[in-house]
């Protein structure tokens, strides 16, 4: 009943699951994060983009309660990320940017260690994920490639079926096929109303999965944009007249345009990559 109520309230009020308010942490020499505020709502996938050293991982460390907020607030589900870490972690899955597991264990041993350590039984979901990512869990982690370790980390993060997922560069080291499987996994979880924050460098995956994107530069959040908004802002429209209606139809089919008699309208969207490259370059020129 309370759960239903929560769902109703969430639906009506669009409750923020992840909330950062004026979060600041100065490491000196311009490093750190400054006055960072952002919200992620339930069921939303938020992409966190930015060049190396921009403060993505520092922000994620705050969310995971690895470091204390020096000033500002850092909350998940209305709870303080440092003080209430235990309660928050019960419903959170985490994938570290620099994956480090227990080297002397095999993949299987590691996953069941995590399961027992968390005090949860997640066998079914675990099997599904292992199958989905074609992971050979009998290999010792020390002998695994970067991609295999990454897959093991992904399975560990998702297997407890958490409501909230914090993923730091989740597809690094994965081959294109596995990246695709990861994208579809994210989209499935999104349909199941999971709240996801992920940092990434791969524009394609962000484009395919995220609802909103936050761009971080020099520790400051410079832009938070809806992905559709970004697309329309950065798209060009061309109208072409063709000789016959037949040709117009074919043309529209080949170039995914809209037909109106002999007239075809095609839209060329700038890729996110290009959009962000512009942002990054701007930053460097400043």
């Amino acid at each position, binding site marked *: 009943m309370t759960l239903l109520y929560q769902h109703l309230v969430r639906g009506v009020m669009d409750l923020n699951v992840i909330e950062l308010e004026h979060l600041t942490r100065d490491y000196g020499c311009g490093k750190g994060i400054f006055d960072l505020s952002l919200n992620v709502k339930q069921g939303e996938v938020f992409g966190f983009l930015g060049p190396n050293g921009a403060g993505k991982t520092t922000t994620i460390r705050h969310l995971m309660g690895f470091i204390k907020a020096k000033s500002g607030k850092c909350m998940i589900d209305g709870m303080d990320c440092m003080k209430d870490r235990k309660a928050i972690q019960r419903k959170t899955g985490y994938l570290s940017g620099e994956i480090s597991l227990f080297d002397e264990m095999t993949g299987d041993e590691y996953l069941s260690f*995590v399961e027992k350590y968390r005090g949860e039984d997640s066998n079914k979901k675990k099997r599904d994920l292992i199958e989905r990512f074609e992971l050979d869990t009998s290999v010792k982690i020390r002998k695994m490639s970067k991609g295999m370790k990454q897959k093991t980390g992904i399975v560990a993060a998702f297997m407890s079926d958490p409501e909230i997922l914090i993923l730091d560069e989740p597809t690094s080291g994965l081959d294109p096929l596995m990246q695709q499987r990861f994208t579809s996994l994210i989209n499935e979880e999104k349909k199941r109303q999971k709240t996801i924050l992920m940092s990434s460098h791969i524009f394609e995956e962000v484009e395919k999965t995220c609802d909103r994107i936050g761009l971080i530069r020099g520790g400051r959040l410079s832009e938070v944009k809806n992905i559709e908004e970004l697309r329309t802002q950065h798209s060009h429209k061309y109208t072409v007249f063709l000789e016959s209606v037949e040709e117009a139809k074919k043309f529209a089919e080949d170039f995914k345009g809209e037909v109106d008699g002999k007239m075809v309208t095609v839209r060329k969207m700038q890729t996110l990559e290009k959009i962000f490259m512009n942002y990054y370059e701007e930053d460097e020129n400043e």
Partner: protein
Amino acid sequence: MNKTLYLYEMKKSGIMLLVFSAIILMYVVCVIWMYDPEMMKSLKQMHDSMPQVMSAAGMDVTSTTLIGFLISYLYGFILLVFPMIFIILRSRNLLAGKVEKKNMASLLAAPVSRRIIVQTQILVIITCTAILIIATTVFEMVFCHLWEPGELNISQLCAINISLFILHFFIGGFCMAISAVCNEASLATGISGGIGAVMFLVQMIRNTQISDTVEKFKYFTFFTLYNPGKIADNVESGIIGIAVLGVLGLLFYFFTVILFEKKDLPI
């Protein structure tokens, strides 16, 4: 305590525990094998000829009983240094090493509080220390019984070994506190190993008793607080020393928990 983590760490301690028990076993066997009231006389002569050198290694020939012999040849060096090395090496990986290798993140990304994690790791180091001391006690009892039946005073042996455990309990607290502060395993080993070595060196110099100044060195090493000879004889000052070590040890473990709970982790 988290049982899964505890069992994992204990399993990981296994080989090291075996190696150190084997080293201790070897020395225990050698020393008990050496015990011979006749030979004690020649050793005493040797000691008289170069008292400083023998005393520096903690080998004082003052008593000719078996327990006195064990105290002279085991409790002045072997049983102080080897368990200490074990503790320094093991404690580095329990906290600092996991932060350095970043697999502490796996432990923190779970509904397990930092307090539980650090308490579990503390319990691991205490269990390991207890295993080493119990193994020592068993070795001593078995070989004394085999080769010198009836010579060993069991209650005296238990008293000195329980206090030996408290000494290493204290060292464990100290090393864990260092491990909780450091973000790198090598730094933790450097600090705890460095301080341990200096303390032991001071103890060795002090043992030579060559001058009054050197005698004052006893105020600069925690090993002074452990005096097996006095404990075996149930002398009050020996027991007070051990009580102080026990209390300091508890304080260090307490600080370990506080420090680890509050610190920022670069993982």
